[in-house]
């Protein structure tokens, strides 16, 4: 359901609300900072989620979509479980990731590219394949940095935390059908 447009509000606030399930809870933010205080990556964020929400309310589209906040989020959901207003903070940050990629403002971060590589493997194998993911990501994005990551990769291989070949899950077709459906729904809404 589309939340009725907030009177006199910038379309940015309404867009974020509409694109996030229970996004209308955003209107309840009391700027307490529980989210920013709880976040393990808080100190590295340009702005804490709280500040981001303030800027969304103020209609600062550019500043929000080019911030690193959404890309620093590791989806631990600490903030969401502690938020006194039950605001789906982590989910709103996902919305901001999507909006930021669409707007071409996701600069200075590799995260979107990494996400794309990840999706490529899930599409084709039904699961992530760490070695391929890393190789594909570094080859496409930063071939030089790959050399630096070599020793870590070898260690992971040695400890069986990564395998040489991707494995395909059983019934990949079914998963692909599910993903296809989800994409259709996603495009519709």
């Amino acid at each position, binding site marked *: 359901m589309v939340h009725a447009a907030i009177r006199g509000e910038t379309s940015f606030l309404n867009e974020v609300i509409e694109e996030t399930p229970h996004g209308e809870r955003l209107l309840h933010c*009391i*700027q*307490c*900072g*529980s*989210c*920013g*205080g*709880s*976040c393990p990556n*808080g*100190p590295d964020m340009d*702005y*804490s989620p*709280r*500040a981001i929400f303030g800027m969304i309310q103020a209609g600062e589209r550019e500043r929000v979509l080019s911030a690193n906040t959404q890309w620093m989020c590791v989806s631990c959901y600490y903030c969401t479980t*502690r938020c*006194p*207003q*039950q605001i789906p903070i982590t989910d709103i940050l996902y919305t901001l990731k999507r909006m930021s990629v669409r707007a071409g403002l996701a600069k200075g971060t590799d995260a979107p590219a990494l996400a794309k590589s990840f999706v490529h493997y899930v599409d084709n194998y039904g699961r992530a394949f760490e070695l391929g993911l890393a190789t594909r990501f570094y080859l496409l994005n930063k071939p030089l940095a790959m050399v630096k990551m070599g020793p870590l990769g070898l260690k992971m291989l040695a400890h069986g935390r990564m395998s040489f070949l991707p494995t395909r899950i059983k019934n990949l077709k079914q998963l692909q059908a599910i993903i296809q459906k989800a994409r259709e729904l996603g495009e519709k809404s």
Partner: protein
Amino acid sequence: MAERIGVYVCHCGSNIAGIIDVEEVARWAGGNLQDVVVAKDYKFMCSSSGQQMIEEDIKNHQLTRVVVAACSPQLHERTFRRACKNAGLNPYLFQMANIREHISWVTTDKKAATEKAKSLVAAAVRRVRLHRPLEPLPVEVNPRTLVVGGGIAGIQAALELADAGYPVILLEREPSIGGHMAQFDKTFPTLDCSACILTPRMSEAGQHPNITLLTYSELEEVSGSVGHFKVKIRKRARYVREDRCTGCGICVEKCPTKVRDDVFEAGLGVRKSIYIPFAQAVPRIPVLDTEHCIYFTRGKCQICGKFCPTDAIDYDQKDQILEYEVGNIILATGWKMFDCTRIPQYGYGRLPNVFTAMEFERMCNAAGPTGGKIVLRDGKTEPRRVAIIHCVGSRDVNYNEYCSGICCMAALKYGHLVLEKTNAEVYSFYIDMRTNQKGYEEFYQRLLEEGMKFIRGKVAEVTNADRSEEEKGRLVVQVEDTLTGRQRRIPVDMVILMGALEPQEDAMDLARKVGISCSSAGWFTERHPKLDPVATMTDGVFVAGCCQGPKDIPASVAQGAAAAARVAGLISRRTVWIEPVVASIDESKCSGCRICNNLCPFNAIEYDEQEGVSRVITALCKGCGTCIAACPAKAIAGNHFADDQILAELEGALWDASPEALLATFGKKEEQLELKVLNV
């Protein structure tokens, strides 16, 4: 003889007329509904000119019935009944249709609203035709009042009534009256000593000739209604005879046990198995706690009994059930503290130097477990830095949505006490500083000046996992300082959690016993949030203090006095008139099956053994209708809610659903009516 009915449709300014076409409704009712001889719309029916209009119409048009379509009968039924009475019409020959709360306030669809208003007016008109004149029932008001809860609010209410010359029973669950205020050291914003201002009131209540003090007692059962409630009270066994005990305290001194005191000392101190909770307790009579007493658990000891100089210890004492009749009841059962272990990231119960506000109150009290010294859990180390966390369990939809109202002030009070009694720095972590009563903002200013530090941010967590040399062995408060936008970690030695005020555990139970309701949070619901804050929907039951919602001491005292004034008003009237909406049993139809006897929730039905029939005790009946529905012989009828009246109302509301209802409602056939049957 045909009735002559007047119908009056109110605009309520634009409240109703903004949505419902009131003129159309009045015109339609006048043109169509059977027996309606006058139908008008008016800006404000409840104004004196509106009432006058009804009164004049009753006289000039010889009206025999009146219908007003306006707001909820909760608000103005009395007003219009009075108008009918003034004009010589029995007030029960009146009916109200609620077209505001039930229609105009809940829709924006004007067409549908207007049509529904017609239905409700049709329903009221059909019903009122079958109303029968009734007379209200007189009830003598017993001048005795029961006050439940002996905190400051209850004490105030009891003293006001007792001083006015009326008898009061002051019922308290704990061994002493005094409530939470007895536990405090200082009270904000003036910092006067809590005991110094409270204990004179306590002893006055304890010695007042008009007050019967029942401590260590609980309310078991309530029946009856305003003027003549019957209450059953369980007076729990103290194992000490009150008539013999002199309060010397030798038994307490000699008792060899030590028990953690979770009530008065908030878990911070100890007491004996036989104990007087605090030095100024009223009454000063100990209670014996059988759960920890060596004699009761292991069968041997009785040291207290041996040493008591007046032979007052009675190990065989039993609970007593006392019964009283009272005219009114005032509930003043206060609040309880939020269980801070429910927020694990604040570490209460896990990290020893995290304290609750009540623990800190006891710690500051010179008569408390630390003798008034502010020290860590080890009992000796003075903290170098103290953190006070606001809104613990308040303003948080995961726990309590409301603001507890007083804890910002209590936090400032603690800041002052820490600065006064120790060399520590003190930090307040707040979301918003709420200091909105007389002298409160000034107190905040004072603390700013005294050097209390304020960080605007809800604390994320309190941890002992150190990340630096400075944090080693201390507690770390992690928070976003929202004014700088930075995450901060502040090492401290002591943390105080400003837990929320919550309704008492048994608030819902108590509400059910006396027939009132609670808000979704569990606070007792007042009759009107603005205009009637101490009465409730049940006549003769009043509320005062924190049981109605969090508030400070001045507001609790004001409510206690206000509730007493309301009760005194009822007592001085001597007689109250209650609604004659009661059941009556037609003895010629009653088969004496007694099914109704046990079903009545108010014990209002008695059985006449000789005649073999059941009878309703009118003064106890609340007109709930349970017996009416249950009687297999259909021998019971309810005044004002008789079957014929209710069915007529339904048929009126559904006039457009069947030809029979149509004919009965309008007295004309369909083709003779100007009807726009709607498809809404």
